[in-house]
């Protein structure tokens, strides 16, 4: 964050037609071409031709965005991070500085999405996600359509194209980049006039007030949960916001764009959740979906509690030497019982979440379980195959 703040102050200095800090920020920007510092560093030095390698490839894709919109957006974000309340991008100070920043819009907007951690103001998003992240399938990516800007389309396409051959981590950046993009729009929205329609403006206001400290954008998060139409497409209204913002006359397209993109992102993630939570395929409302998710998480947590209690009763000696146990049992089981081919390895476990069914499991599944567990714990290569077979039935299906 230090570089961010330095960038903010540096921005002000740039307005004063002096950029002594920028030279020292240059190496940072060169390292961080796809990391947080980029937009902050790039922004103050638009007319510099040295920066062209960063800007030029990006300008084409975002040529459709309105110029002034992005300027406000960029300044908006700087406002978040600079220490003093900078009046530079309030009404008056903007006009003379606008001109020099006009050429940089498209570049800026492109670079900002590449810096999700910077814009999101939350560290976890910067870090690579764990293996748990579910790579959004093609159906997910196609749904992230964006409000209609060609730039959004290209951005998402880039994300898709980039993510399809790549790892989960990079795929994760697609929603991240779109989220950052949303936030830019949100910030612009925050600067501009508010909505007149009461509901959305209320929610938006709540959220703006919520996020005052950390993040100005994200105003329509809870609104996004509504899955309602975008009737609040930018009717201006006067609201009382704590945070000081300049009000700009902007096209309402950006409003609906931002809101729609934000909502799309949230609904996309809700769809991913739908796949995880069993039995939620037919649910189409965010409130109901949230309810289901809550119930499911609670039930999972209760299951963990119950299972740990059960394990504590079953293993009084706390000797978890699985190898010995499993190897012994496997040998004994093989000698004792003929294989009963009726059931699959874990069908008993899959079909029935309750433990009362465990008593009825025959021996053959137990052997396979033992093998699975044994190999799960102690042999990574073959365990993958076994687990692939077994988890096909392990996954509690709706």
């Amino acid at each position, binding site marked *: 964050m230090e570089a961010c703040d330095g960038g903010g102050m540096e921005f002000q200095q740039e307005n004063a037609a002096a950029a002594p800090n920028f030279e020292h920020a240059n190496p940072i920007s060169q390292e961080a071409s796809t990391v947080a510092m980029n937009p902050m560093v790039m922004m103050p030095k638009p007319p510099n031709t040295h920066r062209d390698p960063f800007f030029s490839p990006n300008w084409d894709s975002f040529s459709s965005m309105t110029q002034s919109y992005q300027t406000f957006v960029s300044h908006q974000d700087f406002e978040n991070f600079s220490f003093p309340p900078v009046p530079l991008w309030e009404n008056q100070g903007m006009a003379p500085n606008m001109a020099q920043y006009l050429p940089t819009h498209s570049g800026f907007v492109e670079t900002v999405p590449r810096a999700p951690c910077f814009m999101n103001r939350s560290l976890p998003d910067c*870090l690579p*996600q*764990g*293996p*748990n*992240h*579910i790579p*959004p*399938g093609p*159906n997910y990516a196609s749904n992230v359509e964006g409000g209609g800007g060609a730039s959004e389309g290209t951005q998402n396409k880039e994300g898709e194209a980039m993510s399809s051959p790549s790892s989960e981590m990079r795929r994760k950046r697609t*929603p991240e980049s779109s989220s950052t993009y949303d936030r830019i729009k949100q910030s612009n929205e925050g600067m501009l006039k508010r909505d007149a329609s009461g*509901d959305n403006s209320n929610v938006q206001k709540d959220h703006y*007030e*919520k*996020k005052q400290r950390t*993040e100005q954008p*994200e105003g329509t998060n*809870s609104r*996004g*949960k*509504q899955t309602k139409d975008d009737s609040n497409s930018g009717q201006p209204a006067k609201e009382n916001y704590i945070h000081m913002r300049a009000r700009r006359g902007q096209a309402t397209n950006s409003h609906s764009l931002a809101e729609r993109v934000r909502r799309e992102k949230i609904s996309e*993630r*809700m769809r991913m*959740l739908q796949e*995880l939570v069993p039995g939620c395929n037919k649910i189409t409302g965010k409130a109901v979906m949230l*309810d289901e998710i*809550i119930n*499911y*998480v609670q039930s*999972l947590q209760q299951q*963990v*509690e119950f299972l*740990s209690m059960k*394990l*504590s009763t*079953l293993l009084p*000696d*706390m000797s*978890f030497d*699985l190898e010995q*146990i*499993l190897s012994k*049992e496997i040998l*004994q089981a093989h000698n004792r019982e003929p294989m009963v081919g009726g059931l699959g390895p*874990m069908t008993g*476990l899959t079909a029935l979440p309750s*433990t009362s069914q*465990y008593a009825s*499991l025959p021996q053959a599944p*137990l052997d396979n379980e033992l093998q*699975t*567990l044994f190999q*799960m*714990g102690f042999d990574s290569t073959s*365990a993958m195959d076994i*687990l*692939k077979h077994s*988890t*096909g039935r392990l*996954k509690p299906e709706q």
Partner: protein
Amino acid sequence: MTFSPSHRVDLKRMASKASLKQKFLKKWMEGLRTYGSSNPFTTVSERKRIIKLSADIAMASIQEGATKWSRALIENASQGMDTFKKSAMSDDRGARLPSAASVAKKIASKKISKSRRRRTRICEPPRPKRLQARSIAKRLVKKRTQVLKNLVPGGESMDDASLIKETLDYIMSLQVQVDVMRSLACMSEHLHRK
């Protein structure tokens, strides 16, 4: 299993789940062995608590600090482990993060959430009549978001979008945890029956 368009996603997810299960089991067993050797517990409830805490820590450490809930979970579990001579555990994996930083982060997040809550009260009442249904739905969503935030460890300081993402990861890890524990329990039960 239905062959839906998301079948591909299911397969991918299952493959990742399998690897998660391995990792989880390994780490869990490691921790339990470490603990079991140093602290012989006799009470069922103590054992249960240890099992659960070590499972939580294992699950969270798999994430390697990439998700918020995992970090919060490790912090919570470390506090729980304190009563069980944390020193034995923290050497393994309880302190992936420097405790000072994590505590500070927790405090910071609490501060932020508190300030957010204070500020949310300064809001206009929803317009009546035709927009009432919408405001009802909104309130519902807000309430449930709050409940979800309480459920997911470390969820209070998240915004909605990242909350959903964290919930996704958390649910997946919980599923892995439950599956592994269940199969272990089932296996132990059958072993004891013989």
